[in-house]
């Protein structure tokens, strides 16, 4: 496979984790501008576990996911009474505060003649796992795609369970949810924590692929992009955010001659799309209709 294509696909896969984590928060009815922070924390933790401590990437990625989950849970607990715009802005502040923390972490070791470790604004270089294990771009793409597939399988099985319908109820109409015996607070906290884990895992993969990470990479814009992919793609199923990622990165890469004007075109197209399909492409209604047609055919 062409290396360029493999890179693009890998980037899509990594961003998909971020978009899916934004999706998980949107499902319970909240907007988060902070998922990029969990992505970043996951990146730093995975980098530290693999490059500094020399552990296997399984542990690195697991630690990244857990780190993301813990931070997300902390945020969820602090903002437990907030919703809507207040919650959204608090996620933004939390994310920037986390990033500030990353900007000031310095812990470098000299390993095999290389400086390894987080070094403030310079970031974390020499995350050499893919070099040490002779992973070509295509190999890493396979690894990332496999992880993503496993996540999607998990999410799809979640879709079919009561949990997802309950979450959507909490997101759409908390009063209805309560009358059905669902605790909106518990659902929110659970899904926010899960979103942190997903973002953290993706961030870990990102660190491994990029081999160099720095706090500037995990700013607000990254998070808002992930959010946009989820909403444009549609919140009906986990395929929605994926579609959003593919549309943006895929379409845009393919019109590279117009590179200078791509956002002008794309921005306008997206706004236009939303006029006609306000719920995104893979909207919940669409998915529900498709599901019931499927069931009717097989009854």
């Amino acid at each position: 496979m062409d290396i360029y294509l493999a890179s693009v696909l890998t980037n899509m896969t990594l961003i998909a984790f971020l978009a899916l984590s934004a999706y998980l928060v949107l499902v319970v009815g909240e907007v988060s501008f902070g998922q990029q922070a969990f992505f970043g924390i996951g990146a730093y933790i995975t980098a530290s576990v693999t490059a500094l401590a020399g552990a296997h990437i399984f542990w690195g990625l697991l630690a990244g996911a857990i780190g993301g989950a813990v931070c997300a849970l902390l945020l969820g607990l602090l903002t437990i009474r907030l919703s809507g715009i207040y919650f959204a802005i608090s996620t933004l502040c939390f994310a920037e505060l986390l990033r500030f923390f990353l900007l000031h972490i310095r812990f470098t070791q000299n390993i095999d003649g290389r400086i390894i470790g987080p070094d403030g604004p310079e970031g974390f270089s020499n995350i050499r796992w893919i070099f040490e294990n002779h992973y070509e771009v295509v190999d890493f793409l396979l690894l990332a795609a496999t992880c993503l597939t496993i996540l999607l399988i998990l999410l799809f099985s979640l879709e079919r369970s009561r949990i997802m319908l309950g979450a959507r109820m909490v997101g759409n109409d908390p009063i209805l949810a309560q009358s059905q015996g669902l605790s909106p607070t518990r659902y929110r906290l659970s899904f926010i924590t899960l979103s942190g884990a997903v973002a953290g895992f993706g961030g870990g993969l990102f660190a491994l692929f990029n081999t160099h990470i720095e706090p500037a990479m995990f700013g607000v814009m990254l998070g808002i992009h992930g959010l946009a992919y989820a909403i444009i793609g549609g919140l009906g199923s986990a395929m929605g955010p994926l579609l959003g990622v593919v549309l943006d990165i895929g379409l845009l890469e393919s019109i590279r001659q117009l590179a200078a004007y791509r956002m002008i075109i794309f921005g306008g197209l997206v706004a236009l799309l939303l006029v006609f399909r306000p719920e995104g492409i893979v909207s919940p209604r669409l998915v529900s209709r498709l599901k019931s047609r499927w069931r009717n055919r097989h009854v």
Partner: protein
Amino acid sequence: MYSLQGIGKSFGGIDVLTDICLTLRPGQRLGITGANGVGKSTLINIATGFLTPDSGHIHLNKKILTYRPAWAFAHAGIQRTFQTTRFLTTANLGEQLLFAARAPESKIRLTQLIRLSGLQASLHLFPDEIPLPVLRKAEVIRGLVVSPEVLFLDEPSAGLTVDELDQFGAFLQQQLGQKTALVVVEHRLDFMAIITDSIVEMKLNRGLVKRVVDVKT
């Protein structure tokens, strides 16, 4: 047995409810009527856990529910319908009714209720494609599948024609079990007379729920 004792609630300095007391036996059918603004909605909201009273207590079979959140009320067996029927717009009726029936016995009840009410044909539709009388029935069914201790109906006649009301009343009389107590908050006395054993009236500032009509002889 479900009871409200000494319930009081004020909003912004205005006492909406003062010392409200109410006791329900299993299978009791009670109607609550009253003029607009007298506090009927507040009462239902407090009785089902969606509002916290400023004073007083709520008991269900020795359990104290007073400061519990609404979902805990639902778990304990207090179900309700809403003035404007509440359904997810993005899932079809069948899915949503199925969601309400978690336990196996609830699923059996659900099948029964659907068959008896003729809702079969509407199950694959979305709530905004379903006519209001059918939706109201569906909301009642949703409340009944869990075999609740108490079912509160919040202005169920709103938006229904006289014929639809008759049908709805007949439907209610058939479907309610022996165990479930029913409380109907309504202002249409004729409708309430059909489905309740007794009606009380809420009066403004008197606070107390007073007896107006004893319907069953």
